[in-house]
C-alpha cells in the first residue's frame, strides 16, 4: 500500500494532518482510538484519493419523513468539483446540522438548496435536489419562487440599510404586499418568534444598522421566517457573534425548530450537539457519516467521526 502512494499524495497528507508519530501508513497512526489501539482513517484516505465511498448512514434515518432530498448531487465551480455526489435526506420538523472541516462543501451544499450558487459564474450541477418532492434544479423551476419557500440566514448578519420594520417585512414587500395592517401584523409575529420583539418594539422606525451584532442576526432570522418558509437554512449563523449572543441564537433555534425544519451549517461541535437532532459529517465534498446527533456524538460508527467531534482531528 505504501508503494502505491505517490510522493505528491504523501506531501498532501503531511500538510493537512498533524502527525505526532512516524508515518507508517497512508494515514497517521492516531494514538487513543476508540479502543485504545492505533487507528487508520480508511474512509478519509479513500476520499483523499478521490474514490467514491459509501457514506455511513444510520438506520434511524431510513424511515424519516424527509423534506429535502438530495440524490447523487454534484457541483462544479468552473473545472473544480466541490461536491462529489451527495445523497441524503433532511428530516421534517427537526434541526439537522452539517459539520466538517473548512472547505468540505457544507456551505456550498446549503446554498445549492435555494440555488444561491446560480449567482456565481461558471457553476454547474448534476444530480438532483427535491424540496417536498419538487425538483429544485429543473428548467421549469422559478428560482424566485423557490427562494421564497426557503428562509436563509448568513454567516455575517446582513440587515439592509433601512428601518427595522422595513427589514423584517422586506420579503413581503417584494411580493407586492402593501396593506399596512398585514405588514405590521407579520412584523410583530416574526419579531416575536425571533425573540427580539421586546428589544426593538419601540424603535421599529429606526435604522437596523444601529442594533448590536446579536440583535442584527436575530433580526435576520425574523426576516427569514416572515414569509413562512418551508425550511430555514442557517449558514454558520453564530460565527461572527460573541458567546452571549451565540447562546441567545441557539436558544432561538431550538425554539423555532418547533415550527420549522432547520438545516444549519456549523463549525462549532458543541453547538451542533446542543441544537441539532441530526448531524451529518462531511469531508472534501462527500458525506461521511449521518445519523442522530446523539449517536453521532456518543456512539459514532466511524473512528473519523469520533475523532472529529471530539476535536482530535480536523
Amino acid at each position, binding site marked *: 500500500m505504501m508503494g502505491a502512494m505517490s510522493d505528491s499524495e504523501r506531501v498532501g497528507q503531511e500538510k493537512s494532518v498533524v502527525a505526532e508519530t512516524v508515518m507508517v501508513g497512508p494515514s497517521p497512526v492516531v494514538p487513543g482510538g476508540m479502543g485504545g489501539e492505533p487507528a487508520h482513517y480508511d474512509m478519509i484516505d479513500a476520499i483523499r484519493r478521490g474514490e467514491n465511498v459509501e457514506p455511513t448512514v444510520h438506520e434511524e434515518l431510513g424511515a424519516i419523513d424527509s423534506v429535502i432530498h438530495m440524490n447523487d448531487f454534484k457541483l462544479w465551480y468552473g473545472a473544480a468539483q466541490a461536491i462529489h455526489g451527495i445523497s441524503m435526506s433532511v428530516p421534517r420538523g427537526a434541526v439537522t446540522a452539517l459539520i466538517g472541516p473548512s472547505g468540505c462543501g457544507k456551505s456550498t451544499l446549503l446554498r445549492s438548496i*435555494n*440555488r*444561491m*450558487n*446560480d*449567482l456565481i*459564474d461558471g*457553476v*454547474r*450541477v448534476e444530480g438532483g435536489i427535491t424540496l417536498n418532492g419538487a425538483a429544485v*434544479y*429543473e*428548467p*421549469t*423551476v*422559478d*428560482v*424566485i*419562487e423557490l*427562494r*421564497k419557500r426557503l*428562509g*436563509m440566514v*448568513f454567516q*455575517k448578519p*446582513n*440587515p*439592509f*440599510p*433601512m428601518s427595522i420594520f422595513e427589514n423584517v417585512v*422586506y*420579503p413581503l*414587500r*417584494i*411580493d407586492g404586499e402593501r396593506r399596512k395592517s398585514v405588514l405590521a401584523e407579520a412584523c410583530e409575529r416574526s419579531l416575536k418568534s425571533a425573540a427580539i420583539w421586546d428589544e426593538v418594539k419601540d424603535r421599529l422606525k*429606526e*435604522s*437596523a*444598522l*444601529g442594533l448590536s451584532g446579536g440583535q442584527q442576526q436575530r433580526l*435576520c432570522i425574523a*426576516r*427569514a421566517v416572515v*414569509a413562512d418558509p418551508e425550511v430555514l437554512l442557517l449558514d454558520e449563523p453564530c460565527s461572527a457573534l460573541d458567546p452571549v449572543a451565540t447562546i441567545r441564537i441557539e436558544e432561538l433555534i431550538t425554539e423555532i425548530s418547533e415550527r420549522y425544519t432547520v438545516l444549519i451549517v456549523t463549525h462549532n461541535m458543541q453547538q451542533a450537539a446542543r441544537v441539532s437532532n441530526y448531524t451529518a459529517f462531511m469531508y472534501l465534498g462527500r458525506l461521511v457519516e449521518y445519523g442522530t446527533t446523539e449517536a453521532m456524538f456518543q456512539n459514532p460508527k466511524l473512528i473519523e467521526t469520533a475523532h472529529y467531534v471530539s476535536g482530535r482531528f480536523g
Partner: protein
Amino acid sequence: MVWLTGSALVLCLGMIGVLLVLVVANGLRTFWPGDIDRLTLSSGEVVMGIKTAEDTQGRFLYRVGNRDIGQESFRWIDGDEIEHVEQPEDAVMLEREAWGVWFGIPESILIQNEEGGEDGDLVKVTDGSGETLEAFGEMHAEARNRRARGEAMRKRELGKINRGIEAARLAVAEAELGVEQRGYAADRLGWVSWSFVLVCVVFAGIVWWVRRDAGVGIGAAGVRVGKMTRFGCVVVVIFGGVGLWVGGPWKVAGMTGEQRDGVIAASALEQERLQVEYERVLGAVRAGERIDANERFVVIEPTTGRFSPIAQTRGDEPMMLSQVVRLVAANQLSFFGKVKVFGSRWWEFVSTGPREANTEGGVYPVIVGTVLLTLLLTIFVTPLGVIAALYLREYAKQGFGTSVIRVAVNNLAGVPSIVYGVFGLGFFCYTVGRYVDTGPVEGSVLESGVWWGLFGLSVVVAICAFGCGLWGRPDPGHRPRVLHRVLSKLSWVGWGVTVVLLVMVVARTPYFMGFFGARAAEGSPTFGGRGLLWASLTLALLTLPVVIVATEEAIASVPNSMREGSYGCGASKWQTIRRIVLPGAMPGILTGAILAMARGAGEVAPLMLVGAVKLNMDLPVSTTAPFLHADRSFMHLGFHIYDLGFQSPDSQAARPMVWTTTLLFLLIVFALNLTAIMIRSKLRGRMTGAAI
C-alpha cells in the same frame, strides 16, 4: 519624505489659497466707494477721479470717467506731475444709464415747464451743490421708478404685442409653406396596407392580454416563452400604433389655397388690432418719457466746465434726472453710508441686467443662465450615467469587453472639451436641431412603402434579437454550449441592426415635416441653432464619464452580503437593484453628480460653440408658455468673464467686473455643490443609521 510630501501639499494649498484671497479681495474691493480726488496737474489741468491702482514708478491709475467729452475713462498720471490733491466735499460720481461714470460737482436741477412743450424753457429750481444734492435725494427715487415703469411697460406689454404680431406673421408664412407641402405631400399608405397593420396590432394586443401572465413564476423555460411572447406583442403594439398614427392614410400634410387665404385674412385682422394696441401703449410710454425729460440735472466737470449731457450727440442739453442710476458723493459719506453704497451696488450687480457692453450694471441673466445650464446638465447626465453604470456593473458579464468599455469611458474624460463643443454644434444643433425644425433633409425622404418595410423589419429584428438573448443564456447550473454563444452574439448584432434601422426610419420618415419649418425657412432656426438645450446636452456628454465612474464605484462598494440577503429573501435582480443596490449607492451617485456639476459649471470652451452669447436679456425662463425656453441662447458666467476681460471695448473699465464676476461664479458653484453635499449627507445619515 514627510517634509517633501508635506511641502508639496502646502504648495498646492498655498496656490489655491492665494487665488481665492486674490479673487475675494479684488472682488469685494470693486464695489467699495473710494474717495474722489481733485488733482491739479503741473500743466494747470484739473482732473477729478478715483485712484484705483499705482505702479512702482510712482504713477497712479485714476478712474476719471466722463467719456462723453472725449477722454479715456482710465488715466495714468505721473506722481511728479501732481501739484495739488484735494477731496472736495461736494464732488460726486454719477453712475449713468449710458456712457459710464461722470465725475463732477452738482450745480443745479432744472425743470421744464409742462406748457412749454419740447423746447420749453428750463427753469432752475435749485442752485448750489448742497441744495441740489438735497433736492436730488428727494426727486431721484421717483424719477427712477417712473423710468423703470416705462421700461417694464416697453418690455412686457410692447414685447407681448410684438410677439403677437410676429406670431400672426409666422402663421401666414406657415400657411404658405403648408400650401407648398401640400404640393409635395408625401404619398400615404393605402387603406388596405394600413388596415393590415391595424389587424396585426390588434392581434398582438389580444395575444398580450391573453398571455400576459404566461410563464410568470414557472421557471426558466416557461419564463423564456412568456417573456418572448409579451415582448413581441408589446413591441408590435407600440411600434405599430406609432406607425399607424403617423402614417394614417386620411392625414394629409399642408393646407389648401382656400385655407391659406383664410389664415392670411385672420392674421391681417389680428395684426391690425395689435398695431392699434401698440400705438396706445407706445403713447403711454412716450408720455412717461416726456415727464422724465422735464427734469434735468446739471453736474459740472472741472476741466472744461461742461455738464453731463443728455446724450453724446446732444452736448448742449444737461442730462435727465432719471438717467442717473446712482449718485455717490463719496467724500461726504460716513462709513455706514459707504457700506450702504457697497450693498446697493452688489444688489444691482446680482439683480439687474448688464449695461454698457457688459462693463456696467449687473449679471442677473448671466446667473440665471449659468444655474439653469448646470441644473439641466445634471438632470440629463445623472440618470444616463447611472443606467450605464448599472448595466456595466450589475448586468454585463465582466470580461474583456467591459474592461475595454471602462478604459474608453475613462479616456473620454480626457478629450479636450472644445471637441465636445464641435461635436455638439455639428450633431445636436445642426443635425438633431434641424430635424426638429424642418424634418428630414430634403432628398433623403423614403417612399412610404419602403419606409413601412424598413419599419416592419426593425420590429422583426428587435424581436429576434430579444429572443436570441433569451435563448442564448444557458439554464442556471448548466454550461453554455456553442449554440448559446452563437445566439448571444447574434442577439448583440440584432440589437445593433435594430438601432441602425430605427435611426434610418426616424431620420428619413416621409411623415414628419418639422415643428418650426416656417421660421427655419426665414433663416431663423428655433432648435436648429445654438441654445440652452443643446449646450446642456453637450455638457452632459462631457461629464458622463465622471458620473459613470463614480456610480460604478458606488455600486461596487455595496457589500455583496446585502445582495445575497436580498436574493435569499426571494427578490428578483431588479428588485434587489432598486431596493438594495441603488439606495446603498445613492451617496456615491450623488457624489458623481456633484463632480459632474462642478466640472460642467466650469466649462466655457464648448459653450462658446453651442449656445453662450455675449448678451441676451431674454431669460431662458419666463412666465409665458412653455416657461422654459430651452431653444434660446443664454449668458454664462464663465463666458462672461472671458468676454469682459478680453473682448470688451474698454477692458480697463471692465477689469473690476471681471473680479466680481469671478467671485460670484465661485460662490455660485460653491453654493450648488454645497446644496448637493447637504442632500447627500442627509441621505447618508439615513442609510447608515448614524443619526441614531
